[in-house]
């Protein structure tokens, strides 16, 4: 019952996303036909503009345009980009793995480091590791990722010359983007894990485990880890939700062929169908992550189901 309700609500939000995507994009001033003609150094004569608009179907009533686009979109025909002339669906198919790969690899790296770091910090609250973690968390909140990315490029590619960043560097060009995503996620994830461990450390069953003869560290690690992992999993979902929509600036700085870079290139000419597809894809990814998280949580921790 509850599962069905959640799925229904996700679908409702997704439909809302298509509506909002259409409305927001069409509300932007400036005519894509004019902009596209100018971008290709053609004179934007009224005839040329009208011809382009007719070709793209922009001369029909808005409601009809929306319904036609929605039907095509659901069927997998995402229309053709005004700018590149290529099918948008194929373009996203090529670019999505780059965006997802960098984001998820960065998150995996952050997660791998967060558990030991958070654990060490929880063992000695106020100790050295804890302070390092505090600084990392503050850094993740206060340092713009695109600025950090620029500084890393300067340090590793210009000063030290350890890795190539731009051009066809093979796997090397993905090292710094993944590191930036990981650095941004590491502090918050580790902090959540630490808070979870400290939380559970005050619980009676950990006290009981200590009374049984375990050292406090052992008790925490053996009996408290799973509770803290619940919080960590939730935090991870929150981070994962923004993998698609959140890393635009990182993609731009590193020149990665991801979908956000495609969006940024497409905005200049108001590439309607690309913008609409991007909004829907970003929201869909977030809703997928959120839905699977809710289902997983209800399964892992039945108490949440009662709420």
């Amino acid at each position: 019952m509850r599962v069905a309700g959640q799925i229904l609500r996700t679908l409702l939000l997704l439909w809302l996303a298509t509506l909002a995507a259409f409305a927001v994009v069409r509300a932007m001033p400036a005519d894509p036909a004019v902009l596209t003609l100018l971008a290709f150094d053609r004179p934007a004569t009224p005839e040329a503009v009208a011809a382009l608009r007719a070709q793209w179907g922009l001369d029909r009533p808005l409601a009809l345009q929306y319904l036609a686009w929605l039907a095509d979109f659901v069927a997998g025909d995402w229309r053709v980009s005004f700018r590149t002339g290529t099918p948008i669906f194929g373009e996203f198919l090529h670019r999505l793995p780059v965006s997802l790969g960098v984001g998820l690899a960065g998150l995996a790296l952050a997660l791998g480091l967060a558990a030991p770091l958070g654990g060490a910090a929880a063992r000695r609250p106020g100790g050295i590791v804890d302070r390092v973690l505090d600084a990392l968390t503050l850094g993740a909140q206060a340092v713009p990722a695109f600025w950090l990315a620029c500084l890393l490029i300067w340090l590793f590619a210009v000063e030290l010359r350890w890795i190539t960043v731009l051009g066809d560097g093979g796997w090397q060009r993905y090292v710094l983007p993944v590191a930036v995503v990981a650095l941004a996620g590491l502090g918050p994830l580790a902090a959540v894990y630490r808070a979870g461990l400290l939380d559970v450390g005050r619980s009676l069953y950990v006290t009981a485990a200590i009374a049984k003869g375990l050292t406090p560290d052992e008790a925490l690690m053996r009996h408290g880890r799973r509770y803290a992992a619940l919080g960590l999993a939730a935090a991870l979902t929150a981070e994962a939700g923004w993998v698609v929509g959140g890393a635009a600036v990182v993609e731009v700085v590193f020149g990665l062929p991801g979908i956000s870079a495609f969006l940024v290139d497409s905005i200049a000419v108001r590439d309607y169908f690309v913008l609409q597809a991007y909004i829907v894809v970003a929201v869909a990814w977030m809703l997928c992550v959120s839905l699977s998280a809710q289902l997983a949580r209800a399964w892992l921790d039945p108490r949440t189901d009662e709420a």
Partner: protein
Amino acid sequence: MSHHLPAAHRRRLWILPLLAAGAAVSAVWQPFAPDAIDLAQRHAPMSALHWLGTDHLGRDVLSRVLVGAHVTVAVVAIVGAMAVTLGSLVGLAAALGGRWTAAVLLRGAEFLAVAPSLVIAIALTALFGLDALTAGFALGIGACGPFALLSYGLARRGMAEPYVRAARALGAGTGALIVRHVWPAMLDTQFAYLGAKLGRVAIAYAALAFLGLGADVTRPDWGAMLYEYRPFMFDNPLLMVWPGLAVVLVCVSLRTAFGGDPGARVPASGGDACTAVECAEAHDLAGASPRPLRLVPGLAAAPRRLI
């Protein structure tokens, strides 16, 4: 409640007027005219005359960084005001209203929380032109969604507190109940959330300008400066350092002022509003994310007050 918290998480609201005063002074006074070009002084190093050196056109970097301050602070102030008033109102209305009111308000807030705010911000700034006011408005709408969800969770939680039920049983009206009992208890968490969120707003504004999409790149905004100085990263990397440091300084001040770290003490908002809030919380244009809210209802809750 503040005195129970470790020093790092205490509120220091007196920083806010200091920040506003600093921004106001820097708006009217700079050592040099920020746009005064002096080609004889290109890329001058730091000196007693030009404290932070000069850029590729011989403009005084300190003056340009100072001018950027008031725009950023204005954007942050607008977003903060919008989030607190609109977000609180919507959250409270959803908590107090009937089932359908709540559903409509919460779905709307959820949508704002998951929509890619980069696209929304670009669309709105394209509609109304970009200045501090429109950017603040665009980012503020995005911030209202998650803040409303947070307020809803807190209000629901507050209404269920024994002391609130006791006050109601004693005959307190709804208005008095909210103003005297429910809302004050929400403030602590709201402040902590604001501290993390408003810092992200400063970064988001810089990211918008950096992408060169909405912002006027010729104006001395911090993000626009970073964009403009990017080609000189190799010859004069310090040019990239100062505007970025300015953003970091504002973020750290905001977090310190509001006593950051919502993760350590935000009670789970209960029910399903969490997931959107946690997504929203992690939301950021630049790919980095602040610490998510605690998610496991029940155990993560603050100790219940006894009557």
